[in-house]
């Protein structure tokens, strides 16, 4: 009986001992996994600017920086429009609680810049000039294992060692290991889980449970505890930092190359209720200097004279037009007398001149036979005799005469021979002073201003009091000759002159 008990006890002991040994030697601790698809996106990835002050006097708007060993030793990364703050050596906020705006940066010396307003006080030459760059963050990742109720999500943001990490002044250090971000006085409402695993079950309805500002030796830590439900594996989670955003550091003072990012690791971890890490990842945040993209637009005036196709067209009403070129209205041989012939050109003007432009038209003379002079503005006899010259006259349009300055309806080819012109809008451009169909007229026309022989003033055919982009009109010419017009070769020159308004 005793022996049997002894055997049972021995067997029980062996079993327990074996079980304990197996448990001790064969059980392996589980390693935490890496969170997948982890990333950190900075809404503003531009590094903060921080340079030492060399000179800057009250009443002056010129500031010179110290080219000594500071995060920035040139003004290459300072741009017009930047808001700058001048601090003392201890970086105790902006002196006088005043900020200034950069108006221009000297490209030549690389160490001075101008402000839009003069300085209100002398600058501390042991202090700094700072252009703070901050912005929101988006940290995304996907869990590998589930996060239990009571577990937590922890985001660790590096902070520069031995600095004030939450005063909205950008921090700097000699290298990445000792550098980091300033929290910029973020509040809990600015740091939230915005998506994934029922966001309201993280922290206080999504808001961060705690923000632990870093110290001389520790980094900033955002923590959310998991409440309400388990966050299952393979959940995509997004953490958003909004509000004033996190302040980007200035460049590291050792080994930094302008244009090359200083890359900081942001640690993201999920933990169980005991504080043991379940999953983790270290996505990177990489602030870098911005690039100034600039260009100069010169003030200019652009003028285009274009040919227009012949045939049945509608430039100034439906007519059959003669094909023009950019430099001539080739009437050719007049097949019929007392018949209207039409031709047209298109004028287009663009200018960024603030006070606009004007285009005038004038002729060197009326159309003289073989280029002879047509003295005066009207024939000395009949329809084509000008003292000693023979010409195709400028039309008078109708009994109520048109002139180079007054338009009149020109509809009768037989009674009112000569050359005239009218205007039509293109793409609703309002820049012409009159139009062929104005005042319910059939073809409202004017004479070309005969400046040389007639002493007339060039007439405005396009104008605008402000900048225009491709303002365009049709200039339509019309001619008819009487049956008695002597044969010959008639021509003149019409001049378009485009100038900016003074």
């Amino acid at each position: 009986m005793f022996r049997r008990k002894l055997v049972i006890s021995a067997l029980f002991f062996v079993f327990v001992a074996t079980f304990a040994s197996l448990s001790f030697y064969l059980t392996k601790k589980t390693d935490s996994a890496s969170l997948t698809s982890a990333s950190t996106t900075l809404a503003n990835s531009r590094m903060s600017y921080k340079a030492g002050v060399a000179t800057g006097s009250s009443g002056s708007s010129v500031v010179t920086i110290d080219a000594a060993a500071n995060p920035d030793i040139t003004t290459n990364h300072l741009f017009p429009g930047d808001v700058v703050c001048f601090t003392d050596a201890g970086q105790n906020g902006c002196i006088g609680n005043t900020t200034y705006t950069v108006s221009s940066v000297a490209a030549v010396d690389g160490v001075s810049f101008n402000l839009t307003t003069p300085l209100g006080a002398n600058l501390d030459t042991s202090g700094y000039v700072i252009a703070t760059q901050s912005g929101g963050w988006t940290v995304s990742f996907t869990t590998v294992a589930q996060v239990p109720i009571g577990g937590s999500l922890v985001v660790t943001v590096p902070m520069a060692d031995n600095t004030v990490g939450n005063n909205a002044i950008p921090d700097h250090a000699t290298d990445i290991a000792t550098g980091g971000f300033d929290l910029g006085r973020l509040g809990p409402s600015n740091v939230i889980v915005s998506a994934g695993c029922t966001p309201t079950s993280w922290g206080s309805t999504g808001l961060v449970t705690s923000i632990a500002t870093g110290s001389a030796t520790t980094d900033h830590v955002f923590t959310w505890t998991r409440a309400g439900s388990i966050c299952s594996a393979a959940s995509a989670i997004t953490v958003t930092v909004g509000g004033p955003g996190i302040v980007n550091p200035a460049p590291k003072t050792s080994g930094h190359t302008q244009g090359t990012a200083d890359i900081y690791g942001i640690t993201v971890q999920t933990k169980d209720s005991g504080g043991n890490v379940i999953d983790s990842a270290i996505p990177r945040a990489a602030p870098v200097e911005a690039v100034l993209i600039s260009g100069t637009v010169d003030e200019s005036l652009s003028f285009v004279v274009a040919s227009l196709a012949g045939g049945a067209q509608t430039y100034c009403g439906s007519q059959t037009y003669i094909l023009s070129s950019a430099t001539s209205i080739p009437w050719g041989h007049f097949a019929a007398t007392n018949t209207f012939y039409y031709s047209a050109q298109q004028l287009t003007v663009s200018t960024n001149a603030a006070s606009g432009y004007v285009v005038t038209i004038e002729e060197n003379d009326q159309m003289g036979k073989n280029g002879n002079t047509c003295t005066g503005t009207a024939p000395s006899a009949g329809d084509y005799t000008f003292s000693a010259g023979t010409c195709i006259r400028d039309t008078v349009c109708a009994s109520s005469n048109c002139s180079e300055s007054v338009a009149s309806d020109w509809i009768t080819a037989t009674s009112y021979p000569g050359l005239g012109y009218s205007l039509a809008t293109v793409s609703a451009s309002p820049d012409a002073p009159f139009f062929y169909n104005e005042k319910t007229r059939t073809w409202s026309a004017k004479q070309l201003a005969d400046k040389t022989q007639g002493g007339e003033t060039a007439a405005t055919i396009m104008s605008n009091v402000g900048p225009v982009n491709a303002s365009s009109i049709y200039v339509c010419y019309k001619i008819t000759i009487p049956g008695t017009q002597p044969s010959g070769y008639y021509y003149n020159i019409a001049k378009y002159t485009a100038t900016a308004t003074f």
Partner: protein
Amino acid sequence: MINNKSKIKTIGVLFVFAYLFIRLFVYSDSVQAQEVSLSLSPPITELTIQPGRSYIQVFTLRNDGAPVTIGPKIFPFIPLDRQGHAELIEDKNSVDVFAPWFYFDQTPVSLGTTGSRDFYVKITPPVGTEEKDYYFTFIVEVQNENNLGINNSLAQARIGANILISVSKDGNPSKKASAITFSAPRLIDSFSTLNYKVVIANTGFSFFKPTGKITVDQIFGSTTVLNLAPLNVLVGGAREISCIQDENLIPCTLPGKFLIGIYRSDLTFTIDDSGTAIAKQIYTIAFPFSVLIGVAIIFIIYRIIKRLTG
């Protein structure tokens, strides 16, 4: 056998034809429409200079049209109207008078498509030049040859840049202005707009730009400020001044869809943002006359209907 050969030949020809036809559309070069297209920069130059001193202005001409031959010239001009338009004085005598002032290469030059040319114009008012303003236009004109041999009107394109020169020994020429017109309707309907007309005259010896505003106070109401556009007012002339908003010239019009009450409008401006301000004041009364007339018509119709039915 012969048939097969013929077929292959026909197919070959068709293939080559089809290839060339497709290539015609796919690879053909873009065709430039025939046009004269010139750009000139800067469009205006303002200069105050001592007699005997020189200044070099560079005008850049660009050709974006068909190849052209162009020739540069300089003509004096006079203000033509109150809109800032100029009238070129092209007679030989007037041009010759100022020939010693300008030195530039007047040789016609050919410009290909997208070609450009810088014209260096050295401006030197001779010693002893009277201290006053002189206005010129630098003109670049397309050289046309009339050898068509048919009846025609040649079209000559010219593009110009204005040069405003104040000759002054001390660099501080006398500038004087007067507001010859500051007007608006005295009585308007509430639903109409209140438009201002501002004409400023130059009675001094040098061109200037007015800097100022129209301040519109509604009695017992709001204040609206309309900023005057800094347009050049040339000596001996007058300029109708627009207003400016966001770098765009706009008519000087009081914004708002319904105006009512008395509006006091003060025009104040200085010359080139310095010196004593020049001021003028006008009043406008806005009243809903159209509403009153409408009510009156309705009342009359009502009375007529009532009388007829009564």
